[in-house]
Structures are given as structure tokens and as C-alpha cells.
């Protein structure tokens, strides 16, 4: 693949990215910088806009699914949702490496792009894991509702956990950062994008349970071991705004 000094720009969607991948491999050229609408404002240089073509993107997705190992396709898909600044450029490298090997792409940690994606995915999955514990639900009628403010695009990765955990219930999780609402009904998951915060009439019965929880936390603390620094490093402040433990 020829490396050029070109700057390419697309709309930031997954299909947009796949269209870009199609052109990169067709032209046998990798651009030096890839911009999306969000990152384009930071750049002063002229960029070449790539229009999202859904049909081409679907074709590309099909090709990748056929040619790559299942685990490598998943790595690329997850990589697209991580918060790495230059993820698009790294993903092009990842696709190229996966096309040339039957090995797991994760074994190519020596390549800077794969290492960067791996570390970024680690941050995403670590946040998802933290949220499996730190999400707090409250009953609104028979519905369980929660609000979170994740740094990464965690909600789609988080919902399957709760779908399994509360397989008989209806749940709603609202992601403030990405304005995304996850709805889980009896194990089935769907999302509403660009959604306003849902409003409900909160019930008083929740207060008693929340008070019992705070009493439990207080009683479980050993004063002789007080170590707020440890608490802070395990449970950073960014999670606490939506946790009733700290009211």
C-alpha cells in the first residue's frame, strides 16, 4: 500500500468508514490523516471529502466478513467504537494486517496501530466493566431506570449484561454523553439515538431502599482503615454523580 500525504474526511458513521476503506484499497493508497466532522475543525489543511455510499459499504462489510477471521472482524468493529483519536488510520492498518494473516490480529501488538487500538479498547472495556457495578437503577412504576455519563461509547456494550441479569424486567439506561437511550424489554435490546433525557415522576418508596443502602455502606466501613485515596482510585469522581451512594 502506498502511503500518501493526503487528508481524507468522512461523516464519522460506520458505513462512511467502510466506504473510505473501499476507496483506500481500490486506489491502493492510505491517507496520512483521516478526519470526521468532529475532528475536521481542528485541521487547517484542505481535505478530500468522501461521500458515504451505503451499497458500497455493505459490499465492503461482506468482503471483510468473508476474508477475515471472526475475531479480527470483531476487533475492527470494536475498534471503530473506541475513543482513540486516530482510530480510523489505525483501523486501516489493522484491516491490512488481518488481510495478510490467518493469525489473531491481537498477536500483532508490536505494530504501533494495533497496540494503540488494543490500549484504547482496554479503556473502553474497562469502563464497561466498571459500569456493570456502578450503574444504579431505581423503580419508576414497574420500570427500572438509570442515567450514566460514560467517557467512551459504552452503552451498547453494557446493555447485554443487564439484559441477561434482569431477563424478566423492562429497563432503560440513558447515556448523557452520547444522548443515547438503551431500552431492554425482557432481554431484548434497542436504542434511540439523539434522545432527550426521559422524565418520570419518581416514587417515594425508593427513598427507603436508598437510605438502607447508605446505612449498609456506612456500617461496612472500618474506620481504622480509612483510605479515601484508595476509594478515589477505585471509584473515580466521574462515576459518583449518578450513584445514590454519595447523596
Amino acid at each position, binding site marked *: 500500500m502506498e502511503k500518501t500525504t493526503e487528508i481524507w474526511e468522512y461523516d464519522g458513521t460506520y458505513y462512511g468508514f467502510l466506504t473510505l476503506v473501499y476507496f483506500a484499497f481500490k486506489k491502493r493508497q492510505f491517507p496520512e490523516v483521516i478526519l470526521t466532522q468532529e475532528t475536521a475543525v481542528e485541521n487547517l489543511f484542505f481535505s478530500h471529502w468522501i461521500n458515504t455510499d451505503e451499497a458500497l459499504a455493505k459490499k465492503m462489510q461482506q468482503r471483510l466478513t468473508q476474508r477475515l477471521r471472526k475475531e479480527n472482524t470483531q476487533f475492527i468493529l470494536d475498534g471503530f467504537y473506541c475513543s482513540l483519536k486516530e482510530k480510523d488510520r489505525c483501523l486501516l492498518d489493522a484491516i491490512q494486517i488481518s488481510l495478510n494473516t490467518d493469525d489473531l490480529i491481537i498477536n*500483532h501488538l*508490536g505494530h504501533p496501530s494495533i497496540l494503540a487500538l488494543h490500549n484504547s479498547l482496554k479503556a473502553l472495556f474497562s469502563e464497561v466493566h466498571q459500569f456493570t457495578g456502578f450503574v444504579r437503577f431505581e423503580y419508576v412504576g414497574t420500570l427500572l431506570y438509570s442515567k450514566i455519563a460514560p467517557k467512551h461509547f459504552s452503552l451498547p456494550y453494557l446493555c447485554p449484561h443487564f439484559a441477561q441479569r434482569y431477563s*424478566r*424486567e423492562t429497563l432503560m439506561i440513558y447515556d448523557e454523553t452520547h444522548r443515547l437511550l438503551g431500552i431492554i424489554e425482557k432481554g431484548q435490546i434497542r436504542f434511540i439515538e439523539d434522545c432527550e433525557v426521559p422524565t418520570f415522576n419518581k416514587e417515594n418508596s425508593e427513598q427507603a431502599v436508598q437510605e438502607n443502602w447508605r*446505612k*449498609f455502606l456506612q456500617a461496612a466501613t*472500618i474506620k481504622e*482503615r480509612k483510605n479515601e485515596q484508595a476509594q478515589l482510585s477505585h471509584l473515580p469522581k466521574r462515576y459518583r454523580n449518578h450513584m445514590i451512594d454519595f447523596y
Partner: protein
Amino acid sequence: MDLSRKIEILAESAKYDVSCSSSGVMNNTRKGSIGSTATAGICHSFTSDGRCVSLLKLLFTNACIFDCHYCINRKSNAIPRATFTPQEVADLTMDFYMRNYIEGLFLSSAIIKNVDYTSELLIKTLKILRYEKAFKGYIHVKAIPGADEKLIEELGFLADRMSVNVELPSRESLKLLAPDKDPLALYKPMKQITHKKKEMAQVPALRNSAAFVPAGQSTQMIIGASPESDHSIVKIAEKLYQQYELKRVYYSAYIPVNHDSLLPAITTDPPLLREHRLYQADWLLRFYRFSADEILSEDKPNFNLYLDPKANWAVQHYEQFPVDVQSASYEQLLRIPGIGPKSAQNILKARKYYQLHLSDLKKLGVVIKRAQYFVSCNGITQPGLVNDPEWVISSLISSKQYETLKKANSQPLHEQLSLFDVERFETIKRKEARHAH
């Protein structure tokens, strides 16, 4: 007594139980049930002492008939007493679980009336949760030593994990400080659980039946209430892992809660650093393929409080370093301070197709601050590295700690490899502290 007061009393009484893990069971969700389990533990909160809250940790009752010297719930203590009903514990668990406050229940109990009666109450609670509430979440229950074998077995089929506290690291200490407990009875349920688990795994007909203690068993030891050395504690832990296939051994720094002539004074600080070192040594046993005798020996039976056990081992065996990360085996990589199982695996993956450089190590998860003294890459070591263990020690710890160590060192200079006589230094420090009191 109202429920919230009971929570205050019985959560407070259970707080010295160390186990907080909710891991080890593959998901067992079924349609029509509530809850699931995870192979990796999930922490739901952290108290201001920095400890993880994953389970609703409660004592069923603190009205105990035993009088163990070290225990806050001993019958001779004048403290508020309370007892839950099985229904209350089950309801509270479900209330908290549905709101995602907890991953499950940790139920322990003082001995009320007698051991069998206490066990029956625990069984009743678990039956309400499992059968009436269809709860599939994690349950850790304490086996009551001395209870009928059938009751222990019944508990084992209801819980995910069981634990029997060995309490103190030696039989002599246990006899002295827990006169109502039979040291042999403590190990009996542990043995029973191990045998039953093995039997369930070996008999094909039983393999698909109800799971017996699927997350294994654990135990807990109180550290600092009795005079055992660190070496003897690590040896006991090693034996417990090998003989009883325990999942975890927990260590609890003794916090003086009772005035008692047989125990450290009530003003004594809990030996938290010693507890920390024991956990580090425990990790070395479980994940780093060390043996107890490599970590400590009878000649040097206590931890160096300034260096973690792995770094301490590395400076004592400095002739084996620097290890070349480009060619070393996984086992060798694991022995380098600053490299853990994950970063060792990352190194193996990264060097498969690419030539490593020292500057890559940090990105691969290696703690360079510690590892830099012990690694090389394609024959190249960190610039400025001095091939002298004493220099390594001085670099790993603060200059103040190093000066204190040096002053207290009684060894002649030519005894390079034994380095610092830390145990002697600790004895001096302890004597000074006693005089000060």
C-alpha cells in the same frame, strides 16, 4: 427492632469478614429467573476505607454463644444484639440486587443456640432466595464448623461459594484465643467440601446435576493477633491451596476490638503493611509460580517491609538478572519486578512478529519504574544501570528509607548478597516503640 437498625448492627458485625469476591461461576441464567453470575468479579461500590463492596455482607445474627477472645461478637461483650429472619435477609437481598447495588449475598453468622440450628437458619434463607425468588445471583455462605455433614452438603448445593475460617494461623493460637472452637472441626468441613467437589467432577452421572459450590471455597486468617511468622503463614496458605484446592486465602490485619491480656493492646495499629505484603506473596503463589520457600525462609521468616516480596526475591537473586525480554520464557518474564501475567503475555504477543525495544515495554503494560533495573532488550540495558543489588535497592526505595535501612544494618560489607538485615532492624524498631509506650 426495625430493619434499618438490624442492617446497622449486623453489617457492622460482618465488616471484619474479608471476602468480597463475586467471581468464579460461569453464567447460569435461566429464563424466568432473576440474576446472573460473572466469571470476573464485579465491584458495586467502594467504602471510604477503600474496600470493595460487591456483596451484601451480613451476619444472620450476632447473638453468639462462643467467647473467642479476638471477636467483637463474643458473648462476654456488651454490644447491641440483633437477629434477622430468613425472609428479611431474602427481601433485602432482592431489593438491593434489583437496583444493581450488589452482586449477591455474603451470609455469615455467629452461633445462635447451637451449630446445627444456625446452619438450618442459613439454609432456610438460601432456600427462600433460590426457590421462592428464583434468584440466580451469587451467594457466598459461611459453613458452620461442627455442623452436621448433611447440613453442610445442603448449604453447598444452594451457595456458589462456601468458606470456613481457619481464624488463626496455628492450632496453638486457636486453642488459646478461641477456646470454644475445636481446631480439628475447622478443617473437617473444608475437607468435606473438597471431597464432594472432586466426587461431583469424577462421577459422570453427577456432572450434569445441581452444582456443588461451583465457585469453590475460601478461608480467612487473622494476622497480628498471634505470634506466627510471615513464613509460617505463607506456608499454611500454600498448603491450603495445594491440599484443599482453595480459591482464595484472605488475610485480615487484626484490629484490636477487645481489651484482653492475651491480645495486642487496644491502642495497637492494625498491621496493614504486613497484610499487604501477605497478599502480594499470595499472588506470587497463585499467579507467579513461586513456592512459599522461595518467598521466605526459616532463616529470614518475615517480610522486608520496604520492598515487595517479588522485588525482594529479585535483589536477593540478582545474578539471574537482567533478563532479556526478547528471548525470555513466560516463567522468566513473570519473575521480573514490574511485569505481571498480563504484561508478560503482551510481551510474548508483541515479539512474535516485531523486534522489541526497551521503550516499547511501558506501552505493553510494564511498570518501568520497577522493571528497568532487571530487564534488557536484545542485549541492551537501561542507560546508567549499575550492576549492584545494593544500588538497585537504593533506587527502588526512597532515600530516607534507604538511610534508615543502612544505619540499622548490622552485616559486614562483604556479605553483599544477604544485603540488609531488615529483621534485626524491625526488632529494634519494635523495641523502641514499646519503650515509647
